[in-house]
């Protein structure tokens, strides 16, 4: 009984994880549909005639279309029994983590330091390169984009507590 329960739980989890994309799209479609309807009622005092499409109605329509198409795609998958996918590699997950960390540090350390740290950590931790090579690469890349974007293009990048 317990084994059967465990098996069913695994099957359900596998189905959800393998079809997470469909669930997300269906949820997004529903969100937009409901949000659009709410907006249509909320903005009804702006004087849109009922026969034309207001901002909320358009959003609701797009949301419904997204919901419908996602459901159709989901049924197509069930019918065609899509192959099981492997888990995302660890290197990819590390890469995402470093990117998020770097973006979080921008307000504190500024763009240049954050990007330099990103390059060093990415090359050493994710792609397993030597520390010296990573540091040199980081300095060169940071210097080049600083010159191109800041000096040539005149983009003002955020400066952190160091002021650089």
């Amino acid at each position, binding site marked *: 009984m317990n084994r059967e329960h465990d098996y069913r739980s695994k099957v359900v989890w596998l189905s959800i994880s393998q079809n997470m994309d469909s669930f997300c799209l269906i949820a997004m479609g529903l969100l937009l549909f409901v949000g659009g309807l709410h907006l249509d009622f909320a903005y009804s005092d702006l004087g849109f005639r009922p026969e034309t499409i207001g*901002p909320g109605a358009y*959003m609701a329509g797009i949301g419904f279309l997204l919901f419908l198409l996602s459901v159709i795609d989901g049924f197509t998958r069930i019918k065609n029994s899509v192959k099981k*996918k492997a888990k995302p590699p660890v*290197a*990819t997950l590390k890469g995402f983590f470093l990117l998020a960390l770097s*973006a979080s540090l921008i307000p504190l350390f500024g763009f240049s330091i954050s*990007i330099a740290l990103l*390059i060093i950590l990415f090359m050493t931790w994710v792609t397993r390169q030597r520390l010296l090579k990573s540091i040199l690469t980081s300095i060169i890349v940071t210097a080049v984009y600083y010159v*191109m974007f800041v000096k040539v*293009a005149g983009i003002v990048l955020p400066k952190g507590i160091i002021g650089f």
Partner: protein
Amino acid sequence: MNILQAENIFSHFITLLQPVHILFCLLGAVLGNLVGVLPGLGPPAALAILLPLTAYMAPVDMLIMMAAIYYGAMYGGTITSVLINIPGEASSVVTCIDGYQMTKQGRGAEALAIAAIGSFMAGTLSIIPLQLFAPPLAELALVFGPPEYMGLLLMSFVTLVGFSAQSGLIKGLVMLVLGMALTTIGVDPLAGAYRLGFGPFIGGFDLIPVLMGLFGLGEVLMATGEDVQNIYKGKLGRLIPPRHELVKGLKSSARGGVIGFILGLLPGMLPSVTTFIAYDVERRVSKYPEKFGTGVIEGVAAPEAANNATAMSGFIPLLSLGVPTTPALGIFFAGLMIYGLKPGPLLFQLNADIVWPLIASMYLANVVLLILNLPLAGIWARAARIPYHYIAAIVLSICLVGAYSARNIIWDVWVCLAFGLLGYALRYYQWPIVPLILGMILGDKFEESLRQSLEMSGGSFNIFFARPICLGFLITAMIILLAPPIIRKFRSGPSGTSD
């Protein structure tokens, strides 16, 4: 061409061939190229950034340099699209599809070369109608109203069928609608109402961070997970494509150029849209449509030619009617105003001594760009052999900076990360990405056209069938959609075998 126009253009060519004018043209092309290579900085940014440089110049010199910056920036975006799969701006998205595949096959130099040659050909040939027929062409473009744009956009949506061939039509449609759904977040284009416009979502999603994330970050993270060592390891291919490939590329450039020129006349018609249409037309007329997306030369030549031709034809409404059709031309318009030149019907009469050198300089700028970029293509292509961990580091940093530079807000960096995650997820779950981009590019215009059309008609959809141009687009869309399977069935005959 009447004798007066021939004399004008010839005499101004002579004027143009002074060393100082050639120098400004060359300088503008180089600077535009450099800025255009930077992801996130396309022609509008390049013009805006470099406009102050022209402040102390004579009007003719200023216009020559600005035109050269514009064309230079357009080609600059192609380089990153082909070599590292990051579109420099929205109009380079389609070039990524086959261009990057060519780089992975060691044919990056060929891709860049045909892009340069195709752009030169389409750009140069597009200047001829500009000088001959600018005013009547501009008047024709004004006939287009919201229903006509709707018809054109629906025809554009048909192109997504080609981008969804491998993954399936339903998936393509889901991505297209998702892209359109994402454009609803923020401010409504007509009434100014906020839709899910709380906190940072109030400004919606800018296209540049989205492109950086979907293409740049998504691709790098995918490649990192697969432990890719190099984009390409073997011997690099030649610079100039083999003769048969070159001929195919030139024919595609001609077709793409015509499409880009005609559509570029329409106010609001962005080069990004014409590139999608040109690519799809090329795929449909090809004898091997199934090879598109695997690195065919036509897949690079056609959109690049369309891109340049659209840029050229955009000058027609600008100079003849004073209507800038794209953001980049809006900055050009501002540059003209700075010098007291008022674009419009009288420009050719009152300021002929400035307009005609500008038109003549377009020919020169195209030649300069070809001479500049063709030899560099082979050098750029060597980037494919750089170890991927260096490329990844450069791409990651450039994506974040490019995303920030779009609107100078940190929020866009987070948008870039989120779309990087989405880009990876789409690749992981095997969803097509290009329809998503198409939906995001066209979403605002589609909504605007649809709602304006229904306002005009009082809510009746008959307006789309009552207007001949719109009806023509709808019929064309149906033909494009239904003709290939019907023709295939007809060719296979009643026995089911092919001829």
